[in-house]
């Protein structure tokens, strides 16, 4: 436990010391959303109609991109070997690094989402649910992504490969996350969607560290 917290603290310190890490992930998220009106055209009603989907897809891609480096630097500089030899179980290593990652990228993303929703003309009725859905969904994304990050370790072209492995697993999160908001906008209850999201998170919480740890052990052989 002490080791776990030390690792989280060190990863947070690394992220903060390296300057504007948190802002950069959010910036990508913002840019991605902002791109859409250019591609699709500026009609307000169309934008409002696809807003929830676009925001979720952007959150997904932002999480994906920032996850690429989750274990990479530690792997390349040999830290991961040392962590594997340390007293902390590998599962705790995965969980600690994922937690730090989510604190640095997921949280700012949740904060930025309502502003983007405004830009895309989403109705105010969806805002609360949007934030709630992201708050449940982004940790799930980070957890699922950590498996992919571990799997592609050592693979060249890691980033793109990672996206391939993980995008299909992200789809349920995307469906329920966007579904919750659509429900709220259509005056239906978003509860079932949110509960399913929470279920995904609950499943990912123990499984992802297990799978991630197994993948990391493989990568180190």
């Amino acid at each position: 436990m002490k080791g776990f917290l030390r690792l989280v603290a060190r990863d947070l310190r690394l992220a903060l010391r390296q300057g504007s890490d948190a802002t950069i992930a959010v910036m990508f998220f913002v840019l991605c959303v902002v791109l859409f009106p250019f591609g699709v055209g500026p009609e307000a009603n169309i934008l409002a109609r696809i807003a929830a989907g676009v925001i979720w897809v952007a959150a997904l891609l932002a999480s994906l991109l920032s996850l690429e480096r989750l274990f990479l630097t530690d792997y390349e500089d040999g830290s991961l070997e040392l962590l594997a030899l340390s007293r902390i179980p590998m599962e705790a290593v995965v969980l600690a690094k994922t937690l730090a990652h989510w604190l640095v990228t997921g949280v700012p993303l949740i904060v930025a989402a309502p502003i983007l929703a405004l830009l895309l003309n989403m109705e105010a009725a969806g805002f609360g649910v949007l934030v709630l859905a992201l708050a449940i969904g982004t940790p799930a994304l980070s957890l699922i992504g950590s498996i992919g990050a571990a799997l592609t370790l050592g693979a060249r072209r890691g980033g793109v490969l990672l996206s391939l492995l993980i995008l299909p697993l992200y789809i349920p999160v995307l469906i329920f996350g966007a579904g919750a908001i659509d429900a709220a906008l259509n005056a239906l209850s978003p509860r079932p969607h949110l509960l399913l999201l929470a279920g995904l998170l609950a499943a990912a919480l123990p499984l992802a560290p297990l799978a991630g740890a197994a993948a990391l052990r493989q990568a180190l052989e």
Partner: protein
Amino acid sequence: MHRFANPARFLRLSAAILPWSAGATVVLLIVGLYLSLFGSPPDYQQGDTVRIMYIHVPAAWMSLFVYTNMAIAAAVGLVWKHPLADLFAKAAAPVGAGFTAVCLITGSLWGAPMWGTWWVWDARLTSVLILFFLYLGYMALVNAFDSPERGIKAGNVLLLVGIVNVPIIKFSVDWWNTLHQPSSVIRMGGPTIDSTMLWPLLVMALAFTTYFVSVVLLRVKAEILARRIQTLRLSEAQG
């Protein structure tokens, strides 16, 4: 630290200018705000909302002006390797980003009553948004390197590449048909705006400029001092 062509001279110069520019900022702001809030008539169409203009327009001018200056400094930094030019761009960026943000925010505040929407994806508005992202990208890039020098140099290249956006912003209203109104002050053939509105506008623009000068001087000075300290710390690492 060693890199400054002559930091001592710069520090002397800035110490001499700073009180004047800071003082001018305060005076001009007070005069400008008075003129724009009380000393100018409400618009016959827009009523009092027109007063947003006295913030919006100078901020918009400054956002372009600052970026252009940064790009010039970047060219000077790259070609003549003048260290103060490098520092200038780095110091000016947050201020420029701030002006751009003010322009965007006041613009959309103004848009709500005038156009009936906070935001449209038209050429003028989007190109200003891109400018804002360029500022942010520049700041992120400059701080993203282990060696500050490298960050500044990479930033310089980005500034030069991004300069293409400035004419797009300026002429977007002429090239594409947009909701945003075309230029009436800075245009060929002189301003077409009434002098009761022109004066407060110009005073505010001047106030923004002196504010910009003061902040940049302060930030460059802080940067120079920070590097001095860093040097002292690192020179302990001899061996």
